[in-house]
């Protein structure tokens, strides 16, 4: 089950549409499970890693994946090989991910790229790696063509995610 938790106010219709997209992509149920508050002291560009650790008040079952949605900007990550633009963050194989609406104003305007980022981060939660296919949502998200694609997976990633979901079902 995918649980979408909002950290800022969003339009319910757009959230329902996002849930439908996630359901289509993964084949598991997806619902809006309420909202949560951003912990104080995380700064304006939010530190995604700290955010995942510190957000409280989210209820989920063991195999559930929680996708947090915020309208605020996420801080870019300093990595050994450079700076990674961050529009979302998820730890491989864990149960929480966060994506931002930035640079789009609202979900309606930037629905496709945001949904694609959502698929990407949820894919990481199901242990998918980055993909070579530019049409796939697991393609590296900082590439120029990423935001222009559809929120879909390539065959390989789709099959792998299905396999992981099947194995994860308790």
């Amino acid at each position: 089950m995918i649980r979408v938790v909002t950290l800022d106010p969003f339009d319910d219709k757009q959230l329902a549409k996002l849930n439908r997209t996630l359901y289509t992509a993964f084949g598991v149920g997806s619902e809006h499970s309420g909202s949560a508050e951003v912990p104080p002291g995380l700064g304006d560009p939010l530190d995604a890693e700290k955010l995942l650790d510190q957000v409280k008040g989210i209820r989920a079952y063991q195999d559930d994946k929680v996708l947090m949605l915020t309208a605020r900007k996420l801080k870019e990550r300093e990595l050994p090989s450079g700076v990674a633009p961050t529009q979302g963050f998820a730890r491989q194989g864990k149960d929480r991910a966060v994506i931002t609406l930035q640079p789009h104003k609202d979900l309606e305007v930037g629905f496709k790229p945001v949904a694609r980022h959502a698929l990407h981060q949820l894919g990481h939660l199901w242990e998918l790696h980055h993909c070579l296919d530019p049409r796939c949502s697991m393609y590296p998200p900082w590439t120029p063509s990423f935001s222009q694609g559809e929120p879909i997976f390539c065959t390989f990633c789709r099959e792998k995610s299905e396999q992981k979901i099947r194995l994860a079902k308790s």
Partner: protein
Amino acid sequence: MPEGSASLQQLAVGDRVVYPNQGVCRVTAIDAKEVAGQKLVFVTMRREEDGAVVMVPQAKVVAIGVRKVAGPEDVKAVFAFLRSDSDKADLDWKQRARTNLDRMTQGGILGLAEVVKDLQVLSELRPLPTKERELYDNARHLLVSEVSAALGTAEVNAEDAIDIVLFPPGRERPKRTAAEFAREGEDDLGLEGDLLGLDGDLDLPSDEEPASESDEESSSEEGGEESEEKESSEESAPKKRGRPPKAKADAPAEGGEPAAPKKRGRPPKAKPPEAEGAEPAAPKKRGRPPKPKPPEVEGAAPAAPKKRGRPPKAKPAETED
């Protein structure tokens, strides 16, 4: 000998090692056990990813390719390699598969990086086949987990660090052509030799021969039936039918003329005339009683018209009359 294996003699409990094709493991025990009367020292390793346990005799550790986890300096070398322009992927799939297998088992972290880089470069030329896509995913997974272990960061950060080098931000991957991969003194894809060989095999003779055989078969099958029909028709009423082209074609074949059928060059058609050299005996030898009968029936055509036709059709005709 795989890189990093030289220091395995001082393996201790708690060390992190890399088991080829399995990933990062932690040594949980080194103890002696008696197996089949022999006392062996086993190294017990637990895979960090999922907790799977493997026991390896200490004497085999180096031979298997177990090595210590790479250090930050090795990771820097990996980034430098991934950043470099070593984009000469091998287009011979057999050679590539063999090389990649060696790299995966014996190549160390740099071997994993080479597999990832080569397959990524190859994917810029054409989509990877399923097996290589799986290999790419495995190599990437092992590389990410080892870089993550070496740098002490989360896997997602390790993967992003690798991909920032492979897919620089703001830049699209280049489209490649086969000419870029051509080595000196080789053809474009290295396939032309094979293709030419196939072409040679598939050249005119092979195209013609099977076709002629099939023609012969079909003509022999069809021709056999046709010839029998024609024979029967000739015997029964060759003049009455009055189809000049067919009669001319059949007449020389069945007329027993020795030269005409041979010129046509169709063995199945040529053979029946030889057998039909004794025309009166030929239809009996073929042993199809129903077909020789029609001439007899036709011979007594006015006497028994009911025998000719199909019973259901003939009866309504009678009733109509």
